[in-house]
């Protein structure tokens, strides 16, 4: 089976999340990996037994190298379906691209990893060390019941190097931002609009809070991370009032605060509380809460394994391998507890075409991804001194 055929097969097994039922695709991946000689397990959490993961192991001993990709995709939104120019689950090839939901995010890196492992297995396996493929469920909804659950429940081995497959145009990404989501509430007093001065307008209070948060966003640009840039704060949704002829007594805004590596989520929450507390909104009151944290990720690339990986990218692409940043989040943040080495994010294509209609992966990039991973594994696990 060629790499292209493998990716087409994976795209043709829908795995949208929600609902996040990965049983079919997990079975396919598990059978395929058993077929090339891997030992396979398929753990799933009790609270969501249909969110099945696959862990396939080749070889034994140190070093342990993990290849991680997720098998769930975002669902096709109602207004998205009509924009697709092909069937999103048909895996159509056109102009050197494979189109399909999940084609680039994240079935392309998954296929590249599976195919590279098959190549290693068919040429005698690893002379030393272990390769572990993790095909994870639940990434698209935060990974709590997928990779985080596997890491916390002892399903994942301690690794010396981890490659998390996501869309980096085959450059080596060593950092991504984290997110703090929060809700800001303004509370006032409702009266009829014929005499608004007798009431307390929650929308007006929220307006001041939004401006303060905008200033906070500008101030954040003083903090710069060399790879992922600056932290940000964005008010994305605002809801308040019910009719034009009443003073609104409540207004709610939802914000998204991106953290750069090194920022402490607890400190960020305190900063948001301080910004809101500093707004002169009396007699209305303002509060911020409902914090949801998804952490940042950052790694060095100083180890021999990381250098070998950078070398493999450099050799195959003939271009600067990085490191670069990756803007969206990934399951990498859940894997920091199972690595005694370093971790990179790496894969074909762009995250900008993920989560959208006409998602595709360039076949050339897909093949380069697989060649790089194969080269890396060959030169580290089967290379070195001959005699």
């Amino acid at each position, binding site marked *: 089976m060629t790499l292209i055929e493998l990716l087409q097969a994976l795209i043709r097994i829908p795995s949208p999340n929600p609902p996040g039922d990965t049983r079919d695709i997990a079975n396919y991946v598990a059978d395929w990996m058993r077929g090339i000689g891997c030992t396979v397990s398929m753990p799933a959490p009790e609270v969501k037994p249909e969110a099945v993961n696959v862990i396939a192991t080749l070889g034994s001993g140190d070093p342990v190298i993990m290849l991680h990709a997720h098998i769930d995709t975002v669902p096709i939104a109602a207004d998205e379906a009509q924009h697709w120019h092909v069937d999103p689950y048909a895996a159509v090839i056109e102009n050197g691209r494979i189109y399909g939901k999940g084609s680039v995010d994240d079935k392309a890196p998954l296929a590249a990893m599976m195919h590279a492992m098959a190549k290693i297995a068919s040429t*005698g396996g690893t002379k030393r060390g272990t390769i572990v493929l993790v095909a994870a469920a639940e990434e698209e909804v935060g990974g709590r019941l997928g990779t985080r659950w596997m890491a916390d429940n002892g399903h994942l081995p301690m690794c010396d190097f981890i490659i998390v497959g996501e869309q980096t145009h085959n450059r080596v990404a060593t950092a991504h931002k984290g997110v703090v989501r929060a809700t800001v509430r303004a509370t006032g007093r409702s009266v009829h609009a014929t005499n608004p001065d007798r009431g307390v307008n929650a929308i007006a209070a929220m307006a001041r809070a939004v401006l303060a948060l905008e200033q906070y966003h500008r101030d954040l640009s003083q903090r710069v991370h060399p790879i992922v840039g600056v932290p940000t704060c964005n008010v994305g949704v605002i809801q308040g009032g019910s009719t034009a002829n009443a003073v609104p007594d409540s207004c709610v805004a939802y914000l998204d605060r991106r953290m750069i590596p090194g920022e402490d989520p607890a400190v960020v929450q305190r900063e948001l509380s301080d910004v809101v507390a500093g707004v002169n909104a009396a007699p209305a009151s303002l509060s911020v809460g409902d914090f949801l944290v998804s952490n940042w990720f950052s790694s060095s690339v100083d180890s021999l394994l990381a250098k070998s990986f950078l070398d493999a990218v450099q050799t195959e692409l003939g271009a600067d391998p990085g490191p670069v940043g990756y803007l969206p989040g990934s399951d990498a943040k859940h894997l920091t507890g199972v690595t005694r080495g370093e971790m990179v994010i790496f894969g074909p294509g762009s995250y900008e075409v993920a989560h959208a209609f006409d998602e595709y992966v360039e076949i050339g990039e897909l093949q380069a991804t697989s060649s790089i991973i194969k080269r890396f594994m060959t*030169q580290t696990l089967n290379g070195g*001194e001959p005699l």
Partner: protein
Amino acid sequence: MQSLTVGTASAEPGTRVRGVIPVTNLPGGRPLDIPIIVIHGAQPGPCVWVDAVIHGDEPEGTLACHIVDSRLDPAAMRGSVVLVPVLNVPAYEAAQRGNPLDTFSYDLNRIYPGKADGYLTERLAHKHSVWLREVATYEISIHSGGAHSYLSETIFATTDEKAIELAQAMGRDWKLILKSFLPKGSPPAVMYEAGKQGITVELGGRPATSPADFDRCGRVLADGIMNVLRHYKVIDGAPTYADTWHTGVQHALLAPVSGLFLAEPRLQVQVPMKQGDLIARIVDVYGDLLTELRAPVDGMIFGLRALPNVQTGDWCCFYAEIQGELSRAF
């Protein structure tokens, strides 16, 4: 200046002492020792440690140690040299790759840093590592193609500048420096983990054991070690360097079928080849062609198997994928 001690050998500044690193006793009552020569310079400087016969069928390094020993005058040295002419003594006695007395840890070059309470060869590796870590600034592991192959002048080194410098210090004869991505289980791995530099150098093997060939291998290796000593100013004299250094990665070309391995008669080591160039034919007992072995990528051969009769899965050819040239690391 203090004396320099390795095992039972304690050398005052400006002197040369022979001794052993004791390992254990064998069932017949003989001790298992590692012979060593400690040559301690009159002035301070780095310690260059040379290991020969990690594999018992690779005696080129022993000859090289003898030549280096004969050329050095400790009174004129800044720094010191430790020579281990025969590291794996039981394997050397048996002229085999591994230690025949050890069923469980046969290949010494895969088990470093060894174990104090391990199998026989693990104990030998452990005792060796302890002194290596303690004493050596730079380590050179000498290997060859042994009984099964011939290898041309080739160095394996990690990709950091200090290791490349040590490799380049081997001098004008050593133009091929291959990448060792994950030194593990070998003396250079012990050095790497201790934050120091070790390299593996390969030259010789069964097809080069005629009087002239074996002598040449010993001398080229010894010249390289002397050049390293000049480069790090342990001894006087101007070091030489290769004009260019090719770098890349090793490809293991294994026999796809059993048969008679007939390498192309005009094939030469370390001459550039193109992907797809014919390396060898493998024929069956009747002379009928079974398969052809071709260059997997652009690169060069740096070694070939010794005996033409080959079985499936055996090493046939040591092929270097050439990825570019190295610039001077110093």
